[in-house]
């Protein structure tokens, strides 16, 4: 039902006058292809504020058209991409940006995926380390003494011929 619902929503918005179609109209397109390409890129970064989660590049709403024209006007006036975005944020607030800014308020938003990855990696690493230690090493001091005694006896008998693996004992 997910897609269906979004189609329905999109449609409801489109109903407010315009016929559903592609967004950018021929009369909006700038003559300079490089400038037009920048305008399209910027349009994808800007939200149509009266729409349900659509960029102004995708939306047919009159507001989106106004914003597309505004972006093109600013570009023609020689603004950099940054300046255009700043101008729109100053006018409409952070809501207009499709890409949330890196800020303290959005720390959890940007940080969460990384946090999950790092915490998960730590958990996996700890599990590996804990489980890499053989469980037999959890013997008591008394057992340890007995093992040492047995080893010593064996050492004496074999005179270092068949020395046991030192690592297994030293790990304690």
């Amino acid at each position, binding site marked *: 039902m997910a897609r269906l619902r*979004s189609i329905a929503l999109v449609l409801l918005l489109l109903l407010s006058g315009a016929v*559903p179609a592609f967004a950018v109209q021929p009369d909006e397109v700038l003559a300079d292809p490089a400038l037009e390409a920048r305008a399209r890129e910027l349009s994808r970064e800007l939200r149509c504020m009266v729409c349900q989660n659509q960029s102004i590049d*995708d939306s047919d709403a009159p507001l989106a058209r106004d914003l597309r024209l505004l972006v093109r006007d600013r570009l023609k006036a020689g603004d950099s991409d940054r300046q255009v975005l700043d101008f729109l944020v100053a006018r409409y607030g*952070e809501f207009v940006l499709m*890409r*949330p800014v890196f800020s303290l308020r959005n720390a959890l938003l940007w940080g969460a995926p990384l946090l999950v990855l790092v915490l998960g990696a730590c958990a996996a690493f700890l599990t590996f380390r804990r489980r890499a230690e053989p469980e037999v090493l959890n013997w008591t001091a008394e057992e340890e003494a007995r093992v040492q005694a047995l080893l010593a006896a064996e050492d004496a008998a074999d005179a270092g011929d068949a020395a046991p693996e030192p690592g297994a004992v030293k790990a304690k």
Partner: protein
Amino acid sequence: MIAELGQYALVLALALALVQMVVPAWGAAKDDPVLMGVAGPVAVALLLFVSFAFAALVAVYVTSDFSVVNVVENSHSQMPLIYKITSTWGNHEGSMMLWVFVLAAFGGLVALFGGNLPDRLKANALAVQGAIATAFLGFILLTSNPFARLVSPPAEGRSLNPVLQDPGLAIHPPLLYLGYVGLSIAFSFAIAALIEGRIDAAWARWVRPWTLAAWVFLTLGIAMGSYWAYYELGWGGWWFWDPVENASLMPWLAATALLHSAVVMEKRDALKIWTILLAILAFSLSLIGTFLVRSGVLTSVHAFASDPARGVFILGILSVFIGGGLLLFALRAGELRQGGLFAPVSREGALVFNNLFLTAATAAVFVGTLYPLALEALTDAKITVGPPFFNLTFGGLMLPLVAAMPFGPLLAWKRGDLLGVAQRLTLAAGLAVIAGVVTAAATGGGPVMAAVLIGLGIFIIAGALTEIAERAGIGRVPARVAWARFRGVPLSAFGTAVAHLGVGVCLIGIVSESAWSLERIASVKVGDTLSIGSRDLTFARLENRSGPNFTARTAVFDIHSGGVSAGTVEASRRMFAARQMATTESGIRTYGFSQLYLSIGEETPDGHLSVRVTWKPLVTLIWLGAVVMAIGGGLSLADRRLRVGAPRPARRRIAQPAPAE
């Protein structure tokens, strides 16, 4: 009359669901086989009653019974039969009926085909299914009754939303719900295992086919929805990172992780606690998806607060099942024994890597979807989280995952040899480099990253084929032996390879469409010609047509390729009188795997028509890749060893000596 019978069946179904929830669980606690035995027959009876209610709803739609509110709001007597049927679930009430119908169907199937399950596990799992059914039947009856009557029925209905009058509505929601709700089986088994406090590799073997089936449906459902949006919405986008899309993507990601961790559990008895948690999370995300779409919270936090009846009910369901599931997990997980040691570099390790990245990707989608809602609810600040965020975070997490994908199946269990695997992937890597270089050369050195990603896609495809070749020993043993071994490779291994291959195919489609699409936007008159790529489109004529319940303005364009006539493409705008609404039908021509996409806009009084033509190279690979993934899942599902109750034939053990199992 039918409507009343349907509603009555729903009420009886609710009573049965209550029985199914309480009696078997009680029996399991008391160790009473008779009480536990109630679960099966009741689950089947529940399925019958819910089926009857659902059929009754379809019947009132097909007969256009305009005394039922739901039919008035969503149907029209002149709609074609197919849309009369599909409009049954093209609305809130009906879609919840479909949800419960699918739930009851899964419960009934577990009851019918779960003969080899331990009594207690089966009883508890069906009890949990009963609890879910109780919650959703209660939701329907108390807040969303599809059978409500009108005192004075109108003569005609308000018709189904024209955008939904499409075959997509017949396929997409049922597939998606089969996926969403199929995950409830994994959830129920997880809860049952936690109640018992015991879990072993056999658990994974029972749960995996259900999860796999749900995953296959979800994969197809999402792909279908994506293609539907692509051709119907008219601007040629295929994924919008819309919250409702994310709502279906999150369970898919979690289910993908669950499939992989369940493999480790089944083969090596490890990752048990994690697998249980994933089973709970996967279905929780399905529920959250249902909540997001159904409660109206997405439209606006405030709209949700002003008409909270449905939203609060769903929120209650969420708290009980997610909160309860996680609480039970916290209480009982400590009692589950971990088994199976393995080194970090091993098949298990690779699957842990897979789970880590899939979980982080799920978290990215989850936070991105809910953060704006939470922020607005808590601080009144409004921000937008759009595609740039998801492309960066989700994309950034998926790339290492898919790049590592060819390595996983080639690693040995317990302790693997990464260098050895890398050597065996040399050929695949070589092909990838060649593909990348050829792509860069052929596209005139365009975006470097895109060429690299095409190489990655080829690496994934070649890597998947390498795994099968390795198992068969192709190149190492004589052809006849290799053929015999190839035939002995278990279907589940083919499933893995094919599903992984599908990811590569999908990646190539995504990259190609994103990097090398061409677009022309113009205002044209009849006789004008537009060029796109190697093709010329001439605006031939604009004509009026009529359908069963709409009229259309259709623009016909003649296509010329290198001066030679190559057919036509048509796009139209349809006007639906019943709702005074218009839709666009984009014109699509497929060439190999690429498509020419035409959409039309407004006509001006002086006879100009605004059109947009897009050339989308290899775009169909996006959905074909998903279909290939689903076929992989299907192959794996067909493997005898996974089929519920199918004993493993002894012959097969002899037939496959070499594979690293």
